Structure formats: structure tokens, C-alpha cells
């Protein structure tokens, strides 16, 4: 008798655990807000503004998902994570989605048990040094002291790069971008290395950005994208297609200013399907017909978000480069909405 009660308790516990991890969508709806993991602060990507409202390129993804699922782009709890804590936070269910310039790698996608829902920024690892050092190439960095963030692909790439090129270096492991910035500016390391976009964002926040150069070498591929827990396909689909909707909107010319008018119906059937004027794509992922429209309304299409947060008109000043639409020679290519 006692044994069966015991087993029964276990079975229920297991069921509850299994259930909780399977229906993120229901959890988010019941909670009324989306828990989104972001960085502890990288200007342009995810950082709170003067009013304490999170802004940035990665933040915009979470706002779009919240708008699609909950109808309110502001219904997001942002959870700052470091390179070391981000995966635990996602795996444990503390956050529903992680949008923190995280590189899509094989082991993270498979062994660590996550699902990357796409790439929102194609990047690569670079080096930044003080101009006064007179270094013009990464191959001149033998013996340098290098600041790196721990728990990242950065530290692995760095080890490989220096080993392959028969150079030595002195690693200074650091937890957050802010600390790395402080150590680098104090001269405690000669070089700061991370994703080139992160370097640009960090440099833009310096008092004299012109004193620092980003070296020409890009030593790795860093496709940065949002990710969710593996095993909840519906939730992964929602996140994936929300990102695709932002990309497709730019390709199709849907912007935040013409959104209302296009939603009423156009003569382009793909736009009609995307914005819910035709067919019922929303129902296929458990949402209503206007989900994508709301996602785009949150911060504009991919191009608008890029321009407003990290584009050439901002202090960070990143060019579109690889992140242009495929029609413009870039890599952005949203699958058809059909």
C-alpha cells in the first residue's frame, strides 16, 4: 500500500514536471508576461535606458514575441544573465526565451538541450586594442594580456587562434561586459576580444572611442540568435516565425508606418497571409490571425529595428554587411509564409 502511494507521488511529480516544460505558451499566457533572458548590459543590444526601460536589438526580439503572444510588447520581464548563468536560467525554466547575443553552436543546440530559432545577427569574433599600442594586426599580439568573458565561445576561439598561430597570451577571465570594459580601460589588459558587434557597442560607450581600434582579423563565425528549451516545438515555432516575420516584413516592404494600411489587404498574397488578411497562419501555431502584425508593430520590421538600435545612424554605427536581406547581397532569408 505504502509503496504504491510512493510510486504514485513520484509519477505525479514526474508528470507535473514534464507538463510544465511542454507548454511554455500556456505558461506565458497564464502569467501574462514573457520572461526574457538578456545580457547584463551591452549598449544597442540589450541595456536599460535612462528610464529603466530595456532597449536594444536583442530586446526587440522579445518585445515582438510578447506582442505576438500576449498582444502587448511591454509585457516582458527582462532577466539579466551573464555568459555563465544564461544557459542554466533557460534550462531551469526561469526564462522562456534567451536573446543575449548567443552563438548558435552544435553542442549548444544538441548536447545542452536548446533549440536556436534562427539568427538575428551574423557576427564574428574580433579584437580591440588601444591605438597607442601601435598594433595593426592580430598576428602581432604574441604575449599580450587579453580580457575575455568566461562561459563564451570567445574563450574557446581565442585559445584555438593563439595555439594555431603559435602565439602565447595571458587570459584575464571576466564575468560581464561592464567589468571587461573597466579592466580594458584601466590597461589591465592590452586586448579586449568578443563578438565584433559587441566590440563596436562597447567602444561606442567609451569617452574617446577614437583612441581604440578594432583589428581587421575576424577569427570565427558567430551566428547570434535567440534560443528556447528543446522539447517544446510549438513554442520554438512561435519564436522562430516571429523572427521570420520581422525579416520577411522588411523584404516585403512592410514597415511600421504602412502596416495599418497593408493589413487591410494588398494585392500581394504573401503580405496578406503574413498580416492575417488572408488564410489563417496564426491558428497553425496556436495564435490568432493578427499575431505577426502585432509583432511588426512592436518595433518595426528587422531593418527598422536594426537602424534604430545598432545601425549606422546610431553611436554604435554597424553597417548591415552580412545582415542585409538576401536580395541586397546579405544572408537574411526568411522562408515563405505559406
Amino acid at each position, binding site marked *: 500500500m505504502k509503496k504504491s502511494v510512493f510510486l504514485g507521488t513520484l509519477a505525479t*511529480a514526474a508528470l507535473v514536471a514534464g507538463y510544465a516544460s511542454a507548454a511554455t505558451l500556456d505558461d506565458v499566457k497564464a502569467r501574462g508576461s514573457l520572461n526574457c533572458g538578456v545580457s547584463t548590459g551591452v549598449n544597442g543590444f540589450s541595456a536599460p535606458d535612462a528610464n529603466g526601460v530595456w532597449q536594444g536589438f536583442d530586446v526587440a526580439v522579445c518585445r515582438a514575441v510578447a506582442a505576438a503572444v500576449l498582444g502587448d510588447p511591454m509585457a516582458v520581464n527582462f532577466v539579466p544573465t551573464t555568459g555563465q548563468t544564461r544557459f542554466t536560467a533557460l534550462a531551469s525554466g526561469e526564462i522562456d526565451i534567451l536573446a543575449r547575443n548567443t552563438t548558435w553552436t552544435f553542442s549548444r543546440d544538441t548536447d545542452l538541450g536548446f533549440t536556436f530559432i534562427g539568427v538575428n545577427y551574423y557576427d564574428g569574433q574580433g579584437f580591440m586594442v588601444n591605438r597607442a599600442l601601435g598594433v595593426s594586426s592580430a598576428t602581432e599580439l604574441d604575449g599580450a594580456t587579453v580580457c575575455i568573458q568566461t562561459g563564451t565561445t570567445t574563450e574557446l576561439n581565442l585559445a584555438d587562434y593563439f595555439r594555431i598561430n603559435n602565439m602565447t597570451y595571458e587570459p584575464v577571465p571576466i564575468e560581464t561586459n561592464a567589468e571587461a570594459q573597466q579592466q580594458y580601460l584601466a590597461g589591465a589588459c592590452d586586448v579586449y576580444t568578443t563578438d565584433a558587434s559587441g566590440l563596436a557597442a562597447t567602444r561606442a560607450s567609451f569617452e574617446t572611442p577614437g583612441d581604440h581600434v578594432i583589428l581587421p582579423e575576424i577569427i570565427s563565425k558567430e551566428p547570434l540568435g535567440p534560443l528556447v528549451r528543446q522539447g517544446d516545438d510549438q513554442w520554438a515555432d512561435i519564436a522562430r516565425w516571429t523572427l521570420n516575420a520581422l525579416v520577411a516584413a522588411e523584404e516585403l516592404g512592410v514597415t511600421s508606418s504602412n502596416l495599418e494600411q497593408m493589413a487591410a489587404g494588398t494585392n500581394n498574397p504573401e503580405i496578406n497571409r503574413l498580416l492575417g488578411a488572408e488564410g489563417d497562419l496564426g491558428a497553425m501555431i496556436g495564435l490568432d490571425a493578427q499575431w505577426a502584425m502585432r509583432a511588426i508593430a512592436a518595433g518595426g520590421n528587422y531593418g527598422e529595428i536594426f537602424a534604430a538600435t545598432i545601425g549606422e545612424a546610431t553611436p554604435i554605427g554597424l553597417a548591415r554587411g552580412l545582415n542585409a536581406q538576401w536580395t541586397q547581397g546579405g544572408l537574411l532569408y526568411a522562408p515563405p509564409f505559406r
Partner: protein
Amino acid sequence: MAMDSGAQQPAFRLSMLLYDSRYRSMTIQVFALFVLMLGAAWLVYNTKTNLEALGKPFGFDFLFNTAGYDIAQRPIEYSSQSTHLRATVVGLLNTLILAVMACIMATVLGVAAGVLRLSKNWIVARLMTVYIETFRNVPVLIWIIVVSAVMSESMPAPSAFRGENATSSMLLFDSVAITNRGVYVPAPLFSLDLGAMFGMPNLGTGLNWLVIIAVLIASFWLNKRLLAHATAVQNATGVRPKTWWKSLLIFLAPLAVLLVIFGFHAEYPELRGFNFTGGIQMRNSLIAMWIGLSIYTAAFIAENVRAGILAIAKGQTEAAYALGMQPGKTMRLVILPQAMRVIVPPLISQYLNITKNTSLGLAVGYMDLRSTLGGITINQTGRELEGMLLLMLIYLVISLIISTVMNYYNNRIKLKER
């Protein structure tokens, strides 16, 4: 057995488990144990199912995969191509190195501060009170970060040592360089490498050091004999022969001969490229942890020492003075040996605290066990549970070893009650 055969034992009934006070506590304990085990089993089972649901089977295979990351402070050979296991060992050694350094420094500082707080000199005593109260009452992490910030913000960069009009220069006849990346001191080297000579190149110059230690122990023993002899002569004739120059000779002569044979020399740090090379580098992270932990824990040890000294009756001091002993000798020969009995037990827990607090190393990038196994390895492999369990186990073992050794010492010095 205290079985009273005279009284009639009532037959055992099940209800007695609850209503009979002889059995009730037993029942409650068995029940509590059962609930506890149920809880533990539930946790284990739940963890296992959840891990399986995530597709992460439990296992320690990851320890044998390539680590892929570099560690700056490597007491043993290690590269990014080594395994996670080796990275763990490097971390463990770094933890132990830091713990030993901090324990020694904290003890020295703590004993000094504790004794000085009882000084008759008003200023000294007040200064020590201020030191103890401020350092004891601010979290250790803050001290560590303060030291780290002072080192990296206010010390000169290596480039400041370069060129014609260098703004900084090395200290102590160009042998020590204090930079914002750490302190560089000369390294002791031997031209004659015993390890290589006897076909054990892995040992490096470890064999040389072993020989030196052996010789020092022998000198120590000889010196003891010499002193015993001097005491015997004193007892017999009333005059103590002069021994100091003989002692000096016993210690210095063999050591000097040995060092000359081994070709002892120092390697000085030298500015080359971006950094100083050669010599021994004590990195900022090590210095910050070492000083931070030491000054913080020393404040606690000082209080233990003060309590120990105050626990010794004033009569002891008076008796020593009556015998004509000077205050310094009284402290060293009469008070402290007795005070040790009071001081050692809390000292054990301070040593344990230091060892456990080394795990704050992550905050300043000190690559201890927590930062290697418990930090980067866990993060790169996603094996949080296994890593954390292993981490807990290792800390537990270290702590148990420390307290066993210290308890042994405590048993030796404590009052023998016969």
C-alpha cells in the same frame, strides 16, 4: 540487560507505539526518517526524470573531453588541449595554493592584531580596534574587489616601464615590478637540475628542493643537539657556553654549499613585448584574493587571540613578572602557550572559512576550483548537476582534512586531564 523479572510485563499491543512513552519517541523517529527518505528519493527521482526529459543523461564522461579554454595560473602543465579533468586539478591546486597562503598571512596578521589590541599603548590598541571592527563588519567580497580595483586602477601598466622617459621603474635593484597586471618577483632557479640528471624530468627542480629541505631538517636536528648540550653544560657548571655562532654555522654552511653546487641563481623579470617575462608573476587576481581574504579573516582571528589571552588569569602574568621575565617573553613563553588551548578550536573554523571563501575567486577572475570546474567547465559542457556535485564533494573532502589535522593538533596541546 536491565530486565526487571519481578514486574509483570504487559503484552505488547500495536497502540503502544503511540501511547506508550517508551515506544513513542521511537515511532516518531522512524516516521521522520521515512519522510526524509521519501523526500530525498523524490528529489533524486525528479531530477533524474527531468534530466532525461531534457536529454541530458547523468554521467561524468565530460571530464575526459578536451577543455578548450586556457588558464593563466598553472601550477602544473596545462593547455587548452588538456581535459576538463586536468583543468579541475589545476583549479584545485590554485584553490589550495590560495588557501595556504591566506591561512598563513591571516594567522600572522591576526595574532599580531589580537596581541596589539591588548597593548598598553593607547594609540596602538585603538588602531587595532578600528582595524578589527571595520574589517570584520564589511563583507569579504567587497574587500577582495577593493584590492583588485586598487591594483588594476592605480598601479602602472607595463608600458609605463618602457623607454627613455619611463614613468615607472622597478623596485629593489630592478628585481621587483609592480604593475596593474600583478607583481613580478625574481624566480629562484638551479643550473644543476637533479630531476633531469636522475631521469625524472617531470619533477623539474622539485628534487633539488627536496634535497634542500632534507638538509635543513638535518641542520635543525643538529642545532637541537647543540642546544641540549649547552643546557647540560649550563646545568653542570652554571655557565652557558656561547652557541649563536655555532647555530648560525650549522644552518648556513651546508645550505650555502648546497646552493653553490646546485648553481642557484635568480631569474629577474624583464619587460619584453606587451608584458614582463621571466621571474614569478603573482597575478592581480591572486593578490586580490590573498590580501582580501587575509585581512578580513585576520580580524576574526585577532578576536580569537584576544579572547584566548584574556582567558588566562592575570596571576600568570604577575607570576612571570615576579620571576623577572620581560613582557615579550612572558607573552611568548607563558601566556600564548596556554592561550592556544582557547584559540585553536575557533581557529580551525577560520581556516575552514578561508578555504571555502576561496570560491569567491570568480569575482576577480582567479581560476580556482569554482572558476574552472564549477564555472567554465560546467558552462561549456552543460553538466551543472554533475559538476556541482563533484565540486561539493571536493570542498567537503578538503574541509574534512583540514579539520582532522587541526583537531589532531588541538588534542596535542589541550590540557591533559588524567
